[in-house]
């Protein structure tokens, strides 16, 4: 089985795994990234979300073969504890999480939206987040954090 080349968080990576392996397992197990999480493995919750070629995708449902040659960004590739990405800073400012397990879904989905639509309406934010789950129900703060990010980005 041929190795697969992909770019993850700006770095070239080569992985030698079964082509049908979900991208999530490659990111978490082979590349030891902590951002994308296993929530459902069914494409229903968003916890595994990464941005691939500009699109928020669910890495639990994406075979690694589909990521060959692609550019993948994970939550932990956006920023660091010392230097969070502006959208991460907005979440920290708004204290927009409880357990934090869902944040790949929330942050990466929102980032992909704002990258595409720099000034989203409330309805567009709601639409984008309609398939993203948070069982701690930090929803209100999360929406506030997304809006703060938009505001600060456009300021």
């Amino acid at each position: 089985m041929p190795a697969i080349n992909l770019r993850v968080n700006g770095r070239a990576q080569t992985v030698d795994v079964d082509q049908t392996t979900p991208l999530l397992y490659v990111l978490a197990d082979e590349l030891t990234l902590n951002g994308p999480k296993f929530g459902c493995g069914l494409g229903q919750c968003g916890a595994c979300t990464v941005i691939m070629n500009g699109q928020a995708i669910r890495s639990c449902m994406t075979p690694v073969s589909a990521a060959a040659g692609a550019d993948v960004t994970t939550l932990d590739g956006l920023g660091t504890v010392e230097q969070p990405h502006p959208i991460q800073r907005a979440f920290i400012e708004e204290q927009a999480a409880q357990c934090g397990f869902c944040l790949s879904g929330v942050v990466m989905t929102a980032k992909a939206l704002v990258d595409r639509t720099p000034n989203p309406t409330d309805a567009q934010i709601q639409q984008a987040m309609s398939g993203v789950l948070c069982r701690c129900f930090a929803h209100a703060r999360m929406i506030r954090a997304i809006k703060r990010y938009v505001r600060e980005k456009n300021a």
Partner: protein
Amino acid sequence: MSQISRRELLKGSGALIVTFGLAPAESFAQAVATLVGNPSKEVDGWLAIAADGSVTAYTGKCELGQGLYTAQTQLVAEELCVPIERVKLIQCQTSVTPDQGVTSGAQSHPQNFNHMNLALAAATGREALLQMAARHLGAPVEQLTVRDGVVSHQARKVAYGELIGGRKFNLPLSGTAKRRHPRDWTVLGTPVKRLDMPAMATGHLEYAHNVRVPGMAHGRVVRPPTVGATLVAVDEASVRDIPGFLRVVVKNNFVGVVCEKQWQAVQAASRLKATWKPGPGLPAQATFHDYMRTRPSRDTLLVDSKDIEAKLASAATVVRATYLHPYHMHASIGASCAVADVKKDGATIWSPTQGVYPQRDSCAMLLGMPRESVKVNFARGSGCYGINGADTVSYDAALLSQAVGRPVRVQLTRKDEMAWENFGLAFVIDQRVGLDRDGNILAWDYEAWSPVRGGRPGYNQPGNQVTGFLAGFEPAAFAPRSPAPAPSGVLANGQNVVPSYVTGCIGTACSGTGTVKSERMLSRSVESPFWTGPLRSPARLQNTFAHECLMDEVAAAAKADPVEYRLRHLRDPRLMAVVRAAAKAANWEPRTRTQNPEPRTQDAVRSGRGIACVLYEGDNGYCSMVAEVDVNIATGVVTVKRLVMALDVGPISNPDGVRNQAEGGALHGMSRALFEEVTWDAEKVTSVDWRTYRTLPVGSNIPQLETVLINTMDAEANGAGETSITVTAAAIGNAIFDACGARLRQVPFTPERVKAALK
């Protein structure tokens, strides 16, 4: 046991469900032990101060997403008078932290922030340091001041590091050590930002899911296809050709597979040929509430004034209603995960458990090892809201690791988690309330049935969860008891069985919050076909839903305003204060009937508001909520527009933390009230993913959330995390009634049920 007060017994534990349902007295003591643990009585068990003045503190109460890590760090900094940056808190590792049982039941504040444990250790430590400083500086303690870990007398100073640096205190916790008063707080009481937030927001926090141990293999479990099915045979040959395959592990009815890589284990688990003998079948869901009434039960009479039938017979009006609640799930966002490294002579488990010591002891039983040779390190999980799959997956990992002799990581699937977790309780609640001629309540009668099976494993019952049971351990035995013995001692209202409006008297001791003297509350547990366990506000939410909606029905029957009518029957000033505060913040307009009495027209949207209140667990946090809703008459769809809450949880450690919990609890409560319901067919659970178990997504019509905090500084600290969720279903149900006259007596409030109630 009789001489111990109810508060000391921590009546509020979810574990007490076990008591009511299953078990004789020993198990009661055990349930209490599980909550309290057996923590160190020595300062050194909780604190160490290094030569550079840095503080290391040890706690047995773990961060579950509720902000406890930060609040406890604030507590230590406050009591020791050191900057918060100087405190490093180590949480929940059996090798170093005190045994504080489990982190549950909103009991961490009562346990660690009042005059016990961590707070007392820090206060004792501060007083000891001041004594040392007095000797060092040759000045009386009263003349010393302390700031940022430096003790001063006039111009002379000495730092904690110089006084104790690296040495032990060798000092027992002092019951007379003085806590710093909330009025003097500089670190506690302030909205310190979550210390773990930057790591969470940037995806750098290591959860149990991210624990990677050298040589680690990947396991998956293969649960029975139906409830109660038993294993006949496993065909290992069906998976042997999968690359990386290591083992099929069978222990009684427990089955798992281990492979080198995770994806291989996924394939092995799905391909493994196993033959199962079907279970006995399940009672029909449609008639489950009535089925419960027919089962042998374990009965507990909370209060009985013995005049209830006579008073109801003499009443001018009797309002009676039956309220139904389904099983709910914890349904954590992450399917649970754990890593275990079990060797012949010792084991280490990385577990998102709520209690590392109970996990250690019960897991040791499962492994057949002495508990001293098992180490459990807490690793963060996704929010659990009670006992989710965290303990059971730790057992899974331990069993698989023991079998292959290598570290094994087990990731449950969404279905493993949802079909087999310990569900929150279903309930059927019958109530009768008698009114006098003036519309005042004369008598309140309550009788309820709820199902139990298993629960927290505690220190010695691994069979209380699915893995332990499959591996051959029994759950806590069910012990029917009917009739119930007469109430005795002091009222234990940890499950909020007793409504807020009665006096709650046993003999001459009356600790209820209301004025109604004629009262009888009888709860009955029956055996559950599914695993059950504490889920955020266990039993308290279900009971409060029934009480507070019925109170609304009674107010309507008495043609009284729901706020005024509640206040008329309450006598606890703090409960009355939260009711008033919520009503005020919501601009409550008094009313004496449903606001929209005109004939119902199709397609109209009606608006309404409702109120509910509770003293959580009978003594652990006050909350009242006003809900505003729109009801679409044609579709039956309920849209919640606004939730206004007032909370009084004693002195507030971290106002933003409390707000975050109150807001999350309100939306969690709304999701449970409108969408959530465990479903099953003749043999298995059928709500096994996010399509079949619905939850409110982040992108939805989120109501406006407003939280009023009443900071009662001279009271004890209460739990805050389970207060708002307890009243949400009732507040929404009452608002629906106000909007359109439809009384919803069954959760969830689906459009079909709303339309049916409108007819």
